């Protein structure tokens, strides 16, 4: 890793990272503010949820209809869908700027005129991305605990569960980052990088969705990253699912390795 490139990338991405963090905090604050009302309507909502298709509830990680605790409520409302969209947007935007974005802006030539091996350029920017991801996930978890304790009820707050969520959330983001960075190296047009990365993320999500309803698709669901994404289970159990974390890390490692391999050979036109 080259610390100068790391610092430059962190400095460049600091503002968007802060914006994403403030955004997720604001959203969580809104969810927390709604929680008391939600609790009052819990009985009616539980009845309503019972009528939801089982597959749909599974898709959003709702194994039991129990939102009586703030932990369950926030997990249900946040990690099923919205958080995935936000973290995917953060990671894909970051990856887009790494090679394709710099190539498009023309700054890659300036960077590559410096005596630094190509793999170091990519790993330094990747390290900056990792720092951003960790910051975002930590802010999410700290925000939940802080808002939950301050404005909702700390009763039933699964501290161990949220601690266990940290590595899982980071690894999901890294898995998305792995293929997004690869696309950023392979595709010169930044818009196409975003479209391809979003497309593949959606494909994995839909694959997981379809796997809930179709036994045939379910057999290939393991191929997608969301097969290993079960925030409700992680927070309820309070333990890190080692197998899922390792597989998500493997997705990330394969993506980054291929990206480095391709970048070593890429013509900078």
């Amino acid at each position, binding site marked *: 890793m080259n610390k*100068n490139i790391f610092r*430059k990338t962190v400095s*460049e991405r600091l503002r968007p990272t802060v914006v994403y963090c403030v955004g997720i905090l604001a959203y969580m604050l809104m969810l927390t503010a709604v929680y008391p009302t939600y609790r009052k309507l819990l009985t009616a909502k539980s009845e309503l949820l019972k009528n939801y298709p089982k597959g749909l509830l599974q898709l959003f990680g709702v194994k039991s209809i129990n939102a009586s605790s703030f932990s369950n409520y926030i997990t249900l409302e946040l990690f099923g869908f919205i958080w995935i969209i936000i973290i995917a947007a953060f990671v894909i935007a970051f990856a887009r700027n790494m090679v394709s974005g710099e190539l498009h*802006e*023309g*700054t890659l*030539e*300036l960077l*590559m*005129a*410096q*005596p*630094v*091996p190509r793999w170091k350029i990519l790993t330094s920017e990747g390290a900056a991305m990792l720092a951003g991801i960790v910051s975002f996930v930590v802010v999410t978890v700290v925000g939940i605990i802080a808002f939950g304790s301050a404005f909702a009820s700390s009763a039933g707050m699964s501290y161990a569960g949220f601690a266990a969520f940290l590595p899982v959330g980071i690894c999901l983001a890294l898995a998305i980052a792995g293929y997004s960075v690869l696309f950023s190296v392979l595709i*010169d*047009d930044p818009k196409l990088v975003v479209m391809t990365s979003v497309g593949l993320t959606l494909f994995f999500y839909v694959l997981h969705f379809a796997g809930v309803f179709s036994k045939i698709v379910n057999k290939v669901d393991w191929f997608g990253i969301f097969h290993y994404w079960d925030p409700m289970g992680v927070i309820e159990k309070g333990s890190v699912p080692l197998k899922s974390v390792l597989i998500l890390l493997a997705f990330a490692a394969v993506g980054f390795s291929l990206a480095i391999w391709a970048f070593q*050979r890429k*013509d*900078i*036109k």
Partner: protein
Amino acid sequence: MAGASEQGVALTSKVISTESLTKLYGRVVGVKDLDLEVEEGEVFGFLGPNGAGKTTTIRLLMGLMRPSTGSARVMGLDAWKDSVAVKEKVGYLPGDAALYEKMTGEAHVKFVASFCRDASQVETAGYDLASLLELELERKVHGYSKGMKQKLAIVLALMKKPPLIIMDEPTNALDPLTQKVLYDILNERREEGATILFSSHNLPEVERIANRVGIVRKGTLVGTERIEDLRGMRLRNVEVIFEGDVPADLDLERVPGVSGVERLGNRLQLKLRGDINPLLKIVARYDVADFSVSHASLEDVFLEFYKLEPPGDLASAGNPVPPAEGGGDE
């Protein structure tokens, strides 16, 4: 830097050498079978129209692109395989240099200097260069004009005082006064022993600062010549205006060195290489209203020397330019 070619230059070893260097973009030719040698201490002007292959060649030398076939060596190192070592020895100015818009000029200087072993010295040299070029480093780049961006890119390329300077269209967007400052800086660097390769389509610029020139057309190096040798060819443009139409019996075929004859009413235009007296003797037999002679430009000399058609024919010459994302002026 006028007179660089007249000054003695100690040529000792090859700083740049390419052998059958070829870069293809699919079926499109970037450069083909390019054999180029630049000696230590030379100022080599790489001349050619847009799309000729100058930027492609420079990117191959900088290890930004891998040759399809052939090889490029810079200071004895393979430009692709040893590109990191090459970049330690080269100050590179890209064509249409792009910079980080949200960073200040000063942050750029610090960033590039941080890659050097003697970072603080390089940084100081950067500030000195910026001062010479009258560039404000405190502002963010998005507030810079095109000329200011070019000045900053020049500072970044030269501040580590590299033994080899490679510049792609260095005077792009620079006003004449700044061009003069740049020529002086390059002259100083050459006197300190640096080798300079720069591309240009600006012929007076090449004549002014280079001591050897290579012309590239359609991806091929047409030839390389010393500037003095080209000037020594004494190619002139001659225009004669007769009192009446150009005489039909005017026999120019007997005049040695005449070429490119054009007759337009009472106006005769031609190029003449060598002694002018035989032409004067023949023309003097007729009533002449006006007679003017001018020294041909380097381009004319080159076109004449290599018997080339004038540029501007590239698009129709079966040499499609590289794809749009090829960047640069190529």
